[in-house]
C-alpha cells in the first residue's frame, strides 16, 4: 500500500447523495479475478450510454477535471454492496481522496485498505467545495493527512477527524495481516481456549 502524506490536485465534484457501490462499479465487472484494471469501468453506467457513447454532461467526461485525484460527493457515499472492487476502481482511476459528509461502513474500511483517504467534512463545507469545483475552472484542493485538513488557495480550510490508528496505517502504508501477526502468541492462546466452546464450532 502506498503511503499518503499530502496531496494537491484538481477536485472533481459529484453532486449526488447515496452513491452506491453498484454505481461506482457495476456488477458486470465483478467477474474478473484480478485486483487491477477497474479504473476504466468506474461509474460505468453514468459515464456511457447503453450504446457505448460518453455521456457528455457526466463529470468524469468533462476534460476540465482530467487528472483529478480528489473526488467530492454527497452524503452516505459508498453504500450498498461490500464489493472492494469499488475501492479498486476509484484507486485505479487515480483517486487518492474522497471528501463527503458521511461514508458507509464497509466502503470506509475497504478504502483504507487501498490507501484511499476518506475525509468527512460537514454538509455545508462539502456544499461549498461542490460549488467551487463546479464554478471555478482549475479548482484545486490540498489534503494533508498529517494535519487532517482540506484547504484551497482562496481561504477555504476545514479539519476532518480520523481514527489515529487508521491515520498511522495510511501514513505508513501498512498491511493489516502483518500488523495482526504481531499478536500471533495471543492468538494461539486464545484459539486453544476457544476450542472448548463446542457450541461455537462451525461443524
Amino acid at each position, binding site marked *: 500500500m502506498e503511503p499518503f502524506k499530502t496531496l494537491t490536485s484538481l477536485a472533481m465534484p459529484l*453532486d*449526488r*447523495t*447515496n452513491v*452506491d457501490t*453498484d*454505481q461506482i462499479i*457495476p*456488477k*458486470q465487472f*465483478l*467477474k*474478473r*479475478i*484480478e*485486483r487491477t484494471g477497474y479504473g476504466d469501468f468506474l461509474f460505468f*453506467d453514468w459515464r456511457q450510454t*447503453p450504446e457505448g457513447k460518453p455521456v457528455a454532461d457526466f463529470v468524469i467526461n468533462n476534460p476540465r477535471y482530467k487528472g483529478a485525484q480528489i473526488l467530492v460527493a*454527497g*452524503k*452516505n457515499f459508498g*453504500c*450498498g*454492496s*461490500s*464489493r*472492494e*472492487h469499488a*475501492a479498486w476502481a476509484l484507486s485505479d482511476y487515480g483517486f487518492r481522496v474522497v471528501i463527503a459528509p*458521511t461514508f*458507509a*461502513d*464497509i466502503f470506509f*474500511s*475497504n478504502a483504507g*485498505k*487501498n490507501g484511499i483517504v476518506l475525509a468527512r467534512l460537514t*454538509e455545508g463545507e462539502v456544499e461549498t467545495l461542490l460549488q467551487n469545483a463546479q464554478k471555478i475552472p482549475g479548482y484545486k484542493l490540498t489534503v494533508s493527512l498529517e494535519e487532517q485538513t482540506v484547504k484551497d488557495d482562496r481561504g477555504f480550510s476545514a479539519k476532518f477527524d480520523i*481514527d*489515529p*490508528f487508521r491515520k498511522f496505517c495510511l501514513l505508513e502504508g501498512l498491511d*493489516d*495481516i502483518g*500488523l*495482526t*501477526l504481531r*499478536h500471533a502468541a*495471543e*492468538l494461539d492462546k*486464545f*484459539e486453544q481456549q*476457544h476450542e472448548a*466452546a*463446542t*457450541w*461455537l*464450532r*462451525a*461443524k
Partner: protein
Amino acid sequence: MSSTPKTLFEKVWEQHVVAEPKGEPTLLYIDLQLVHEVTSPQAFEGLRLAGRKVRRPDRTIATIDHNVPTTIEGRLNIVDQISAKQISTLRQNCKDFGVELYDIDSREQGIVHVIGPELGITKPGMTIVCGDSHTSTHGAFGALAFGIGTSEVEHVLATQTLPQSKPTTFRIAVEGKLPQGVTAKDIILAIIGKIGTDGATGCVIEYAGSAIRSLSMEGRMTVCNMSIEAGARAGMIAPDETTFAYLKGRRFSPQGADWDKAVEEWKKLPSDPGAKYDRELVIDAATLAPYVSWGTSPGMVAPVTASVPDPAAAANEQDRKSFERALEYMDLKAGTPLSEVAIDRVFIGSCTNGRIEDLRAAAKIAAGHKVSSRVHAMVVPGSQQVKAQAIEEGLDKVFKEAGFDWREPGCSMCLGMNPDILSPGERCASTSNRNFEGRQGRGGRTHLVSPEMAAAAAIAGHFVDIRNWEVREEVTA
C-alpha cells in the same frame, strides 16, 4: 454478585476478543467465514503471493451462488466465459487450500446466507463474516455477523481474526401484534423508511419487542438481512425457543450432550435486564402496512395505499434533488397511487425472501389464480434444500399452474450477475433488498416488496393491497 448488565452484542463481542492493543482496533476472533465466487479470488491470490495458508479450513465454507444460471441447461454449460472462470477459480482455490465447497451440483448448494442457517453451521453467539454485505442475515440467530471486503476476506483466511473498532448499539423494538398481511419484510422496509439509509451507520441493531419475537426464523432472517440497507454494521435478535427449535437436528448442529450444553450456553446470550444501548427506538406494530419502494434507494418506501410522493415536500434541498432523480429514473409521477403502477416482471427469491416460508406465503396468494398476461414472473428458491422442500409440498406445481417460471437456486435477479436481468425500462416487483439504479439490469426499475405482495402483483399486473386479497385455494402439502 453484581456485574454491569450487558447487551447481546456486548456478550458476543467480549467472548471473541483476542487482543486489545492500546490505541488500535480490537482484534476479534472469527468463528466462521463463508466464501463465494465473486469476492474471494483476489483474497486467495493474496495468500498465494505471500505464501500463507488458510488458518482454519474447518471454520471456512464456500458455495457458488452469485453468478450461477438458474436454468438446468444454463448450469451444465455456462456460456459467460468470465463467470465460468470465476467459478472454476473458486473450485481450484478450495481444492488448493482445503476448504469445503458446496458446488453447483451439490444437494446443499444455494445462496450463502440461506445455506449457512439451513445446514446448522450458523449458531447463536458466533462471530460470522462473509465478503457480502447481507451477512447480517445470520444475526437472526443471535450471532454477530457482518459483511467485509476482499482484503478482509484474505485477512480472516490467513489469521481467523479481524481488527474491528467497537460499533455502537441501537435497540429497535417492534411492539404489539402485526396486522394481517404485514410481514417481516414490511417491518424492515418501515424501519429503513423511518431512520433512513444511513440511519444506523456505525451501529449494531438489536431487534426486539413482541412483534419480532413472534416471527419465525425465516422472518427474523428477512429483518436482519436488510440491516445493511439502514447503514448498520449488523443486526441481531436474541436466541430463544424458536431459534433452538429451528437448529435442532440440523446437519452441523451439536448433537446429544453437546446439544444440551449448547442450549444452556446460548440461553445466557439475551441482553440482561437494564442493559444500556447507545440509541433506542420503539415502533408500534399496529401502525405498519404492506410497503412498496418507489425510488432508487431502500429508504424510499411508502404504504401500498399511498401515492408516489412529491419531491417538493422533501425535508431539504439534497433530498429534493435525489427524489427528483429517483422519480425520473423510475419514470413515476408524483401523486400517482402506488396501486396503479403497472409492472412487467416479478422476482421472488434472494437471501432476503428466498426461503421455504417465503415460497409458502407466495404460493398461498398464487394458488388458483393466473399470472397476468403482460407479466413475466420468476420464482427462484434460495437453495437446493428450499427447492426440494417446496417440491415435496407441491409448491412448484402451484406456481407453475399459475404461470410462474420455476427456477434453479441462486442469487439470480437480485443482482443480475447471471443471465437473469431486466431489460432497460422494465419494471419489476422484487422480493430482494436493493432498488439501486441498474441493480437488476441496466435501466431496469425495481420495487421492493414482500413475497405476498410480489405474488399478488404478478397476478393483478400492478401493485395491490394484499390485505384485500382473495385467497382461492388452500395449499396443502
